C-alpha cells in the first residue's frame, strides 16, 4: 500500500527547546492513523508543520509525495484540516461559511452551492443553514467546522481533537462520520485524548511523549504487548506517566499522591 504521509526526522525547536524531536513515521493510503500523547507532547505542532502553519527546524515530510516545505500549496489543495477550535465566522451563516471556504479552495462556482448544501444535510444542519454560526450549539459548530474542512473533497483529513467538548451523542455521530470517510477511502490523521476513541477508530497509533515517538503500532498489539486490557492503561504504561491522585486529608485540604 502507498504511503500518503511520510515523515522523516521531523524536528521543531522553539529557541533551543525541541518540541518535536526527530520523529519519523508513515501513514498509509486510506488509513485512520491516531497520534496520541499527553498535553504538550508535540501533537498539534506536528499537525501545524504538516499543514504548512509552521516551518520545521529540520527533517523532511511529504504528503501525497508533495514536500511540505517546497510544495505546500499543492498539499493544501488535497488536505482538509479540522483544528482543535471551531474557528469559523460568527457573523456568517452556516451556508455562507461553507460557500466562503469553497471559494477559497477554488471549488467551481456552479458546484459551491450544491456541495455546501450536501454537507449541511450530511451533518444534520440543513434546517439551520441560514442561522449565524454564533447561534449554533457547540456540537453544531464542531460539525460545521468539520464540514468546512471537507468542502473541497480532500483525500487526507487532519482532525485535531475532534470530539473535545461534544456530548455523547454528538461525539458518537462524529465517530460514525469518521468511519464513513474512512470507508470512502479518505486518509485520516487523528489526534485525541480519548483513547477509547482511538482504539475504536484507528488502525494504527503513534504515541508521542516530549516530542519523541515512543511507539507505533496497532492498538490491539499495543494492548497485548503491554499486558493491559485497554488502550488507556497501555498508554499510561508505555508513556511512563502516572496519574496524580488527589487525596482528601483529614481536616480538609487536598494532597497529591502518585
Amino acid at each position, binding site marked *: 500500500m502507498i504511503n500518503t504521509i511520510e515523515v522523516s526526522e521531523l524536528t521543531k525547536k522553539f529557541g533551543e527547546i525541541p518540541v518535536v524531536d526527530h520523529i519519523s513515521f508513515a501513514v498509509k493510503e486510506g488509513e485512520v492513523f491516531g497520534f496520541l500523547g499527553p498535553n504538550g507532547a508535540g501533537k498539534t505542532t506536528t499537525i501545524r508543520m504538516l*499543514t*504548512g*502553519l*509552521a*516551518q520545521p527546524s529540520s527533517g523532511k515530510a511529504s504528503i501525497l509525495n508533495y514536500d511540505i516545505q517546497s510544495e505546500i*500549496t*499543492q498539499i*493544501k*489543495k488535497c488536505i482538509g*484540516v479540522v*483544528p482543535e*477550535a471551531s*474557528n*469559523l*465566522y460568527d*457573523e*456568517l451563516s452556516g451556508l455562507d461559511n461553507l460557500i*466562503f*471556504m469553497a*471559494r*477559497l*479552495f*477554488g471549488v467551481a462556482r456552479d458546484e459551491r452551492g450544491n456541495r455546501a448544501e450536501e454537507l449541511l444535510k450530511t451533518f444534520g444542519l440543513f434546517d439551520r443553514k441560514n442561522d449565524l454560526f454564533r447561534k449554533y450549539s457547540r456540537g453544531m459548530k464542531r460539525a460545521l467546522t468539520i464540514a*468546512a474542512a471537507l468542502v473541497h473533497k480532500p483525500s487526507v483529513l487532519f482532525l485535531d481533537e475532534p470530539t473535545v467538548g461534544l456530548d455523547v451523542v454528538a461525539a458518537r455521530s462524529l465517530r460514525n462520520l469518521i468511519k464513513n470517510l474512512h470507508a470512502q477511502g479518505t486518509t485520516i490523521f487523528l489526534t485525541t485524548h480519548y483513547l477509547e476513541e482511538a482504539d475504536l477508530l484507528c488502525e494504527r497509533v503513534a504515541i508521542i511523549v516530549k516530542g519523541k515517538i515512543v511507539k507505533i503500532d496497532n492498538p490491539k498489539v499495543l494492548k497485548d504487548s503491554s499486558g493491559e486490557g485497554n488502550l488507556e492503561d497501555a498508554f499510561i504504561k508505555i508513556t511512563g506517566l502516572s496519574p496524580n491522585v488527589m487525596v482528601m486529608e483529614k481536616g480538609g485540604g487536598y494532597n497529591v499522591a502518585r
Partner: protein
Amino acid sequence: MWRDNLRAIYYIALKDMKTYYLKPPGVSWGVVFPITWILAFYLRAPGDFRELVPGLIAMTILFSTTAAEAVVINFEMRLGSLERLLLAPVTVSAVLLGKILGGAIFGLMMTGIVTVGSIVVLGVHPHILYLSIIILISCFTFATLGALLCVFVKEVFEAQTLLNLPRFIMVFLCGVIYPASKMPVWLQYISSLMPLTYTVEGLRGSFAFSPAHIIFKDGIILSAFLSLFVFMAINRLKKKFE
C-alpha cells in the same frame, strides 16, 4: 497560483466587508469621529469651514481604514480564523492583501460619503482626478499601516492602543488642522516622515488646483510608503507562522 491568490484576496475582502466593516461601530468610528473632531476645532476657531475640508477628508481616510484592521487581523488571530485562511491553498501575502483590500475599500466608501457630502453641502470644487488619485493611494497606504501595526501584537485592545499613537501624532503634525508649513522647521522635518503629510498636501493641492507635478509627487511618496508597509507587514506575518 496567482489566480488562486487573486481569488482569495477578493473573497477575503468581500467576507471582511460583510462580517466586520459594514457594521455600526465601523461606520461611526470611520465617519462620525473625524466629523466631530473637525467640528470641535471649527467651533473653537470659527472661520471658513471649507478650508478644513481637506483635513476632514484626510482624517476620514486615516480613521476609517485603520479602525477595523485591528479587529479583522487581531480578532481573527485570537479566534484562529486567520489560521483557517492560511490553510487554504493561497500564500500568506494573499491573505494579508485581502485584509488590506477590505480596509481600503471601506475607507474609500466612507471617504466617498464625506467628500461628496462636502462638495454638495459646502459647494467646494476640487480637481476630481487629482482628488481621486490621492484618496485611492491614501486609503491603501493607511489600511496597510493599520495591518502592519496589528501584526506586531496579539490582542485587539493592544492593536487599538498601538494604532492611536501614530494616528494622533499624525493628526497634529501633518497639517490636518494647522498647516505644516507654519510649524517650526524641526517639526516640519518630523512631519515629512509621516505619510499623512502627503495625503493632506495632495488633498489641499486638489482643492487649490495645484500643478500636476505636486500632486504626483505626493502620490509617488505615498506609494513608496505603501510599498514599504506592505513589505514589512507581509514579512512580519510570515515570521509569525514560522
